[in-house]
């Protein structure tokens, strides 16, 4: 499926992670594929999921979804005033120097995009670039809404080139580039200015609000998981119709009505079949 390109970004933090357990689980699996398998970073993978100590500190995740609400990109944010990766595990990058600490500076780590899925289901490289830029816009806008002025991000040289190519070049770097497993890691500085956000939006042709409606997202995922569990009995047209009903809903009541309709067309709701997982 191609990306519609609007309203595909979800922010999950300690306040709503109980609602989005399935999405978080998909995200931890994506991180395992990217950082463990593809990049060969020295990360701990258990049961196909990459989860570290910082995932237990209530970080915020900015997550990119495709048209079918699958996780295709993610990044993790933590305040630099509290425990964060550069202060601890990435201290090699800082060459023994104290980390920056500021209320208006966030750290971003674990930026990744599911290139395999997007290359397979989308329109190739363009879809990957689009998903990457959308995640950048989403994370910059989320930070900016919290009054954050700059982001320090731990990335590999490939991501560094991606940033430069997307008209989103870091304005500076802190510390040194160091070896991390099969690849190298470095810390880059990005401002969360309106100018930068506008540049990335213009580069990728992203217009309008990028943030997903959380209620509609949950409803769509519930309907999909339900129809998948009664496979064979539900036609693609019915599923498509139900999804459209949810997307057309503008109030909580209308979403409930759409779910009730799904109930009638697909059958009564059973226990969720997807395994949910919540860190922390």
């Amino acid at each position, binding site marked *: 499926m191609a990306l519609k390109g609007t309203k595909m970004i979800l*922010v999950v*933090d*300690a*306040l709503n992670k109980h609602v989005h357990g399935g999405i978080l689980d998909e995200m931890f699996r994506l991180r395992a594929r990217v950082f463990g398998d593809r990049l060969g970073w020295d990360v701990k993978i258990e049961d196909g999921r990459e989860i570290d100590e910082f995932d237990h500190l*209530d*970080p*915020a995740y900015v997550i990119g979804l495709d048209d079918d609400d699958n996780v295709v990109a993610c990044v993790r*944010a*933590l*305040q*630099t*005033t*509290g*425990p964060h990766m550069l*202060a601890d595990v990435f201290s090699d990058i*800082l060459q023994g*120097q*104290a*980390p*920056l*600490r*500021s*209320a*208006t*500076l*966030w750290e971003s780590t674990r930026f990744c995009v599911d290139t395999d899925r997007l290359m397979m289901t989308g329109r190739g490289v363009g879809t990957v670039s689009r998903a990457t830029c959308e995640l950048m816009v989403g994370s910059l806008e*989320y*930070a900016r*809404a*919290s*009054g*954050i*002025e*700059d982001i320090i991000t731990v990335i590999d040289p490939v991501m560094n080139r991606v940033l430069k190519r997307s008209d989103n070049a870091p*304005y*500076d770097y*802190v510390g040194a580039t160091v070896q991390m497993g099969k690849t190298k890691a470095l810390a880059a*500085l990005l*401002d969360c200015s309106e100018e930068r956000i506008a540049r990335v939006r213009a580069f990728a042709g992203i217009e309008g609000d990028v943030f997903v409606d959380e209620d509609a997202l949950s409803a769509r995922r519930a309907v999909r998981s339900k129809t998948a569990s009664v496979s064979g009995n539900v036609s693609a047209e019915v599923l498509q119709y139900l999804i459209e009903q949810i997307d057309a809903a503008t109030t909580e009541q209308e979403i409930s009505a759409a779910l009730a309709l799904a109930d009638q067309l697909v059958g009564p709701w059973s226990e969720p079949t997807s395994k949910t997982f919540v860190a922390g």
Partner: protein
Amino acid sequence: MKPLDLGVISNNSEESLQQVLDNICAQFNLDYAAYAGVNTIDNSIHGVVNYPDAWKEHYVEQGFQDIDPTLAMAAKSVGVVDWTRLQRIDGFRKVFCDASEFGIGSTGMTIPVRGPYGDRGMFSVVRTCSEAEWTSLRNEITSGLQTHATLFHDRLMRHGRTMSEMRQPALSDREKEILQWIAAGKSQTDVGIILTISTRTVEVHLRSAREKLGALTTPQAVARAIGMGMIYPI
């Protein structure tokens, strides 16, 4: 959750903490501000508010600290929590229904603060006004309030005996170098040219240095760095 100590805990500082909250409210056009924080090292809870006494009493009497989602719940967030995000939680309606009887609105936000030792705090502000007014005020003040919230938190955390022992701010060589050039009378632009880094890089390091030194302004940070022997007076 243990009941909050709503009293003013400041005893050796020149300015009462409540006064600090009053000043912040005046500066940012807010009605009331509240801070609560947990020091994970000695497990003490500090709370300071400048709400009217009647509301404070009612709040504690009703045990609202146990159900108020703008406290424990919001402290776990990374981003600023606009209270519209909490409206669906049962406790919110209960607390803010009563609050409105005391003339306190529900347009507000909580800024979560995290300290280096796992200590957490939350700085909440409220302003009774229309949604539209609130949105524009919020966008305007959030960045500035972030810094004040962290300074306020750090200041209270330093009160703990253990914390003050540990508190020799760790500045990087870059931060000290920049402060040293500022002490020598150079502007931020000058410093950028001298060190061949962008002005934005100078600024991000200065902001970090100010915060580590508990300073609101750069001259204050320079004075403190000199006082602590981190840089030389020139």
